């Protein structure tokens, strides 16, 4: 129910309204054709409206229209697209029902659905047609539908009162409140009766008698008034909403909140409807609360089911529903009321006998006494029709053993007293009986305690009071004794029982809280989906004795995800899970949707989206309808969803970070590549352009020098491009070594010939042992390695200084050393020079990427070898390449 604020609309209210508007825009709109009885012409009006829409060009289909053979209705169906009905097989009979999937697939703009309150045949997806319609609305399809006033949930009892007929098929007020438009189809009762006589009103054959009762003029007038009044209230609401959004000050309502207690008694339903109507008239929100007292375990399952139904009913009527535990109903209720700013509590007028009222003050009085500032509305509930099987209080099971022990205690006490007759006066003997009573109260329970008390009095009176063995009461003192014993017995046993119950209640609550704690703790530690699934499974098994199934979306479709060897459920179960996923509602066992499936399916939803579906099967059947268990399950689902979202977000954050780091690296790379590509090009361009200038007075020699330089720069550029390509391949991991037996001398000479131009002014000394065997390696790549090393040697050593190339065999390793006479590298940096973008800081400022050495490293390591560098004290810097002689990986600890 919408809350109407107490002052002018706050920004929050406006925002809420905007949100609501947005949501509404996405959902389909429901238009209701309301009538007060069958035969007023709702279907007729709906079809007429539908035809009008079609004329205007809107896509309309008749999803389910029951003409019941009426000619005028049939005539209206002509020209409209009528979708075929789905036939549900129920015990051999084919029943026509609304084909939900056909409509969803067809996706009209507007669907005409007759008889919103209809109950679907068993085996249909939903229990009620209004649930089908809700699916359409969620899918964005507008729906026109017909409904009678007596189908309104909150008016159900009033209508029953008026007509004497209890209508079973109801529609929750929540849905009706959300309807975008309500059209009242009204004709005078006389006209209606006329039509009835003319046979224009459809009456199913079985119901003739009942409906004749229904169609009495008095009834019709009352129903008509009811429908008119309801429509008026709705218009009033709309006006208020309008006034609120436009900040038109009007008579603002004070903020009322109502509360009603659900107890499982036959009065609860009626009480709820009354509360709902009150709330409606006051424009106030209302809550329904179920108070679970400790003696619950003995309750028959029926009652639990009934309470569950009542809570759902309350929810459907628009209440906020809660379940709380407490030992005293009145305390818990008042407590809740105080915490939630309840202004009025609605209770039913009791009609117990006066005597019982004295003994046990009825709850109403307790509530009234404790309610403090909160108003209490006491409403008359009317004649009590006792519904079957409603135990009003827990009945403790009859235990013969307890009573026998009680008798034994009395006998024991009597014996003891008899033994002490010479020593004590009778008054003191009472104490022994008192002890017996206390013992019985503590150990055996209330009734045995009372039994002991009674028997003790009798025994004492009979055996030990003067005038032995008779029952004449001599002193009234002994009456006092009797009363005292009795009271003690009752009080102590009650205290003990209550204490135990409280302890039990607390234990249960503690267990539930603990299970929530455990699962949140376990989920907090779970970093990814498998860990989450494991944690959930463990906790469900321990806390709820339930087995979970997990379904996660895979692009568009929901997929079963196997976890620790579970079997995939069949297609039907999968379909239920799918439904829960798409409609963001619980489905399956214990719900109103597809309740015949084996599992209960809860969608894992967060505020933003739905992350999957959790299916579960409870070992204890009662759990499906226990409000406590359901709340716990919802909490589990919520926690799981949050954990998954957290894991997902963490992964996203990690990826974002990786991406950021990579982007940084790439930027650095691009910058330095750009430098290394552009520098030689700059030289070449400069040289070519200057040579093209005819006017420059360049001599032949100068020209030759320029051309030589340009040629060298071009070669340098070529080498850089080779390095770049090699780096790309190394990065991509596609370096495939073409290993063949190579001659080291050949390798060195190839590298030298590639560097011929660079080395022309430098002596290069080659030292090789005479009998070097052939070594397996990829010659092309290793040539590149040597070329890079030579290039570095040239770059970082003084011009015309010597370069030393040595190779030798060291047991199973080949060692190639390239030594230059340059200054070398700082000791602290000597390992880092093989990193990808490392640049040795040089005073001359010759920059460039450090790709060369990192490529050498990559290639050497791909061969299973090692590469490292050494400074020489004084002058000199050597890079050493070590390769396995037979193509095996180098063992650790060799070399360096």
């Amino acid at each position, binding site marked *: 129910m919408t809350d109407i604020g107490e002052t002018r609309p706050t920004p929050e209210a406006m925002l809420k309204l905007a949100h609501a508007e947005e949501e509404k825009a996405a959902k389909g709109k429901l238009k209701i054709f309301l009538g007060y009885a069958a035969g007023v012409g709702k279907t007729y009006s709906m079809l007429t409206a539908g035809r009008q829409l079609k004329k205007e060009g809107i896509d309309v289909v008749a999803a389910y229209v029951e003409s019941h053979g009426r000619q005028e209705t049939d005539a209206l169906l002509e020209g409209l697209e009528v979708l075929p009905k789905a036939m549900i097989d129920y015990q051999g009979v084919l029943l026509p029902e609304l084909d939900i999937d056909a409509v969803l697939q067809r996706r009209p703009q507007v669907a005409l659905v007759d008889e919103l309150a209809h109950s679907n045949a068993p085996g249909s997806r939903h229990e009620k047609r209004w649930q089908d319609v809700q699916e359409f609305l969620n899918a964005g399809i507008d729906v026109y539908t017909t409904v009678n006033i007596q189908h309104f949930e909150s008016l159900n009892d009033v209508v029953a009162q008026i007509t004497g007929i209890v209508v079973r098929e109801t529609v929750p007020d929540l849905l009706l409140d959300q309807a975008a438009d309500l059209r009242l189809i009204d004709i005078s009762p006389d006209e209606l009766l006329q039509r009835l006589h003319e046979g224009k009103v459809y009456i199913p054959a079985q119901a003739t008698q009942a409906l004749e009762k229904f169609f009495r003029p008095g009834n019709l007038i009352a129903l008509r008034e009811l429908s008119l009044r309801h429509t008026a209230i709705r218009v009033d609401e709309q006006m208020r909403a309008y006034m609120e959004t436009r900040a038109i000050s009007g008579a603002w309502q004070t903020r009322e909140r109502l509360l009603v207690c659900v107890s499982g008694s036959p009065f609860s339903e009626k009480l709820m409807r009354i509360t709902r109507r009150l709330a409606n008239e006051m424009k106030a929100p209302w809550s329904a609360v179920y108070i679970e007292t400790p003696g619950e375990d003995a309750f028959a399952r029926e009652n639990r089911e009934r309470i569950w139904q009542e809570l759902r009913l309350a929810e459907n009527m628009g209440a906020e529903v809660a379940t709380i535990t407490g030992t005293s109903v009145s305390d818990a209720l008042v407590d809740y009321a105080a915490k939630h700013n309840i202004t009025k509590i609605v209770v039913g007028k009791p009609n117990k006998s006066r005597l019982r009222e004295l003994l046990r003050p009825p709850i109403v009085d307790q509530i009234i006494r404790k309610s403090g500032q909160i108003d209490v509305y006491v409403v008359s509930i009317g004649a009590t029709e006792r519904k079957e099987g409603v135990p009003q209080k827990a009945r403790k099971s009859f235990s013969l053993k307890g009573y026998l022990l009680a008798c034994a205690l009395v006998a024991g006490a009597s014996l003891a007293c008899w033994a002490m007759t010479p020593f004590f006066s009778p008054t003191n003997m009472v104490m022994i009986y008192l002890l017996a009573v206390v013992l019985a109260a503590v150990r055996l329970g209330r009734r045995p305690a009372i039994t002991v008390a009674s028997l003790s009095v009798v025994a004492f009176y009979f055996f030990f009071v003067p005038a032995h063995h008779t029952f004449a009461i001599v002193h009234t003192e002994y009456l006092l004794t009797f009363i005292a014993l009795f009271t003690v017995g009752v009080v102590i046993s009650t205290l003990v029982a209550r204490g135990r119950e409280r302890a039990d209640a607390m234990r249960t609550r503690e267990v539930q809280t603990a299970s929530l704690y455990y699962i949140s703790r376990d989920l907090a530690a779970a970093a990814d989906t498998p860990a989450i699934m494991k944690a959930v499974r463990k906790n469900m098994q321990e806390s709820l004795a339930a087995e979970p199934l997990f379904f996660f979306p895979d692009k568009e479709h929901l997929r079963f995800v196997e976890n620790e060897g579970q079997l995939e459920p069949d297609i039907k179960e999968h379909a239920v899970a799918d439904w829960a996923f798409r409609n963001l509602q619980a489905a399956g066992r214990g719900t109103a949707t597809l309740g015949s499936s084996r599992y209960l399916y809860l969608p894992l939803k967060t505020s933003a989206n739905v992350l999957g579906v959790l299916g579960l099967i409870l070992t204890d059947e009662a759990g499906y309808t226990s409000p406590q268990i359901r709340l716990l399950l919802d909490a589990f689902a919520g926690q799981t969803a949050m954990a998954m979202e957290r894991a997902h977000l963490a992964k996203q954050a990690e990826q974002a970070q990786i991406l950021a780091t990579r982007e940084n690296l790439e930027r650095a790379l691009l910058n330095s590549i750009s430098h290394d590509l552009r520098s030689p090009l700059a030289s070449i361009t400069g040289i070519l352009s200057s040579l093209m200038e005819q006017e420059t007075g360049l001599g032949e020699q100068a020209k030759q020098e320029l051309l030589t330089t340009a*040629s060298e720069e*071009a070669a340098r550029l*070529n080498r850089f491009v*080779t390095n770049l*390509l090699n780096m790309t391949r190394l990065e991509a991991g596609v370096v495939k070594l*073409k290993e*063949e*037996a*190579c*001659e080291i*001398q*050949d390798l*060195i*000479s*190839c590298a*030298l*010939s590639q560097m011929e131009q660079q080395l022309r002014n430098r002596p290069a000394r*080659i030292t*090789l042992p005479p009998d070097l065997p*052939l070594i397996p390696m990829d*010659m*092309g790549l290793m*040539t590149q390695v040597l070329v890079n090393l030579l290039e570095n040697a040239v770059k970082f050593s003084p011009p015309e200084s010597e370069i030393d190339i040595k190779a030798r065999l060291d047991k199973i390793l080949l060692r190639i050393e390239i030594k230059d006479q340059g200054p070398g590298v700082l000791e602290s940096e000597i390992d880092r020079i093989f990193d990808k973008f490392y640049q040795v800081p040089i005073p001359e400022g010759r920059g460039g990427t450090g790709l060369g050495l990192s490529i050498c490293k990559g290639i050497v390591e791909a061969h299973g070898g090692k590469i490292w560098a050494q400074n020489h004290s004084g002058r000199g810097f050597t890079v050493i390449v070590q390769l396995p002689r037979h193509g095996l990986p180098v063992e650790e600890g060799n070399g360096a």
Partner: protein
Amino acid sequence: MSQSAEKGVAGVRILVVDDEAAILRFLKTVLDSEGFCVYKAENGSLGIASAVAVRPDLILLDLGLPDIDGLEVIRRIREWSKVPIIVLSVREREDDKVMALDAGADDYLTKPFGAGELLARIRASLRRALHDVPQPVYKIEDLEVDLVRRRVLVAGLEIQLTPTEYDLLRLLVTNAGKVLTHRQILKQIWGAGYIEQPHVLRVNISNLRRKVEKDSSRPRYILTEVGVGYRLKADFSGNAGGDAGR
């Protein structure tokens, strides 16, 4: 550069098949100035058609053509012609070069290449084609090989080679300037069974170099083509058996 004119290259037709306009321009300029008759084709099918129409004496073929794979072009041309084909390729794809040579190409050039290399290879391949008469003496710098008398002289001194080494040297000499793949050499000298045993070749080349080269770590005659094979350097400044029509 009128040397080529002296060598009677006038009228020699060279077909250049490459999709890069700049390369075509460069090649045409260089080859024109050498006196060759240059024909151009921008893609594989045009290349094949031109080969039929023009009947060139040499084809320069780029491996990276847009329409047909270069290898396919070689195969098709080889179906009806023995015209020398020199492939132009990018350095990284050594396997491509070997495959091209195995498919029937005579030599290759790695981009980027200089004019000197280009002309050297063209002449090496043309020599064979234009003048089938094998030359008796190969001479370059200090190396002299007399094929008739089976004598090898290094700086005037005769050296002794094993029969295998001599065969190897002779194969290189008769293909001076052209590349020979490992497979080709192994097959020719040792037989088809040795194709998968390149180390045999390496050892022999190494021995040969030691005997023939002044500094075998900086070989001047027997050059290694990394990943492909070997090539004997040829000098075209008037010698090296290249007495093309002298």
